[in-house]
């Protein structure tokens, strides 16, 4: 039972906790669409400090339009950026 489905609109949390994080700053607070579910993986934010990384986290690929990321983006409106986000950084938006 996965938390998000392909096509779900999601927001990447706008959060700035200290420590080792795998969510790059440039996507925090941005919205996109779930492109695929990649599987469950040990949480690298825990592994980084010598913990065992459990419980595992669901990893998703999120597709974000470049114009959402960079308001003055100069390429095509259809250009996208896809990246991997763990479930605890995602919130579903819309219905």
């Amino acid at each position, binding site marked *: 039972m996965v938390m998000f489905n392909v096509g779900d609109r999601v927001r990447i949390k706008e959060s700035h906790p200290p420590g080792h994080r795998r969510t790059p700053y440039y996507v925090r607070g941005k919205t996109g669409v779930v492109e695929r579910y990649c599987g469950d993986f040990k949480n690298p934010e825990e592994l980084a400090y010598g913990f065992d990384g459990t419980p595992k986290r669901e990893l998703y690929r999120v597709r974000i339009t*470049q114009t959402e990321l960079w308001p003055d983006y*100069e390429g095509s409106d259809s250009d996208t950026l896809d990246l991997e986000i763990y479930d605890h950084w995602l919130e579903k938006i819309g219905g």
Partner: protein
Amino acid sequence: MTTDERGTHDHDHDHPGTTPDVNETGYYELMAEAMKELLIEKGVVKAEDVRRNLEFLDSRDPAEGGTIIARAWTDDAFKARLLEDGTKAVEEMGFPMGDAELIVVENTDDVHNMIVCTLCSCYPRTILGLPPDWYKSKSYRARAVVEPRSVLKEFGTDVSADKTVRVHDSNADMRYLVLPQQPAGTEGWSAEQLAGVITRDAMVGVTLPQA
């Protein structure tokens, strides 16, 4: 030339090709070395394991990736498996992905894909070998996600405005390989011939293969 000799060899011209890329006495280099020695001393890993892993990584090169792409161009069933589950499909050809998983992204008439790792330098090393210096540079890592079309142009790749440029940030557990479009003029070529036109940079998505 050893580090000691360099210290006493004090003049202001460069010696091209002799400057080491890594400062062996730098803070992180010394820490890595100390960590390796400790792990060996405490029996966590054996020196032979470290050596064997280095030997394996050094033995990988983009030719391995080229054979994968050439097979996808000549074998539709394999191509379907490669796009469906990259990890399994390359393992079937004898290429292990190790701890990571592989996602293969296909260039089409409508989409051009390029790969970057903004957080470090994640790269499908077991099938392409070690990443090139530019891939690890802060400049590429920062600019590929902000102005991919300008970066592509600097690599000599002009992607038309009606095509979608899709950048993949390899920021977690997946590794990426671009499946380029087979270049015109190579119809009917054997997989061996095709492998010869597939370059590392085309599989990272910054160039297009040329016949």
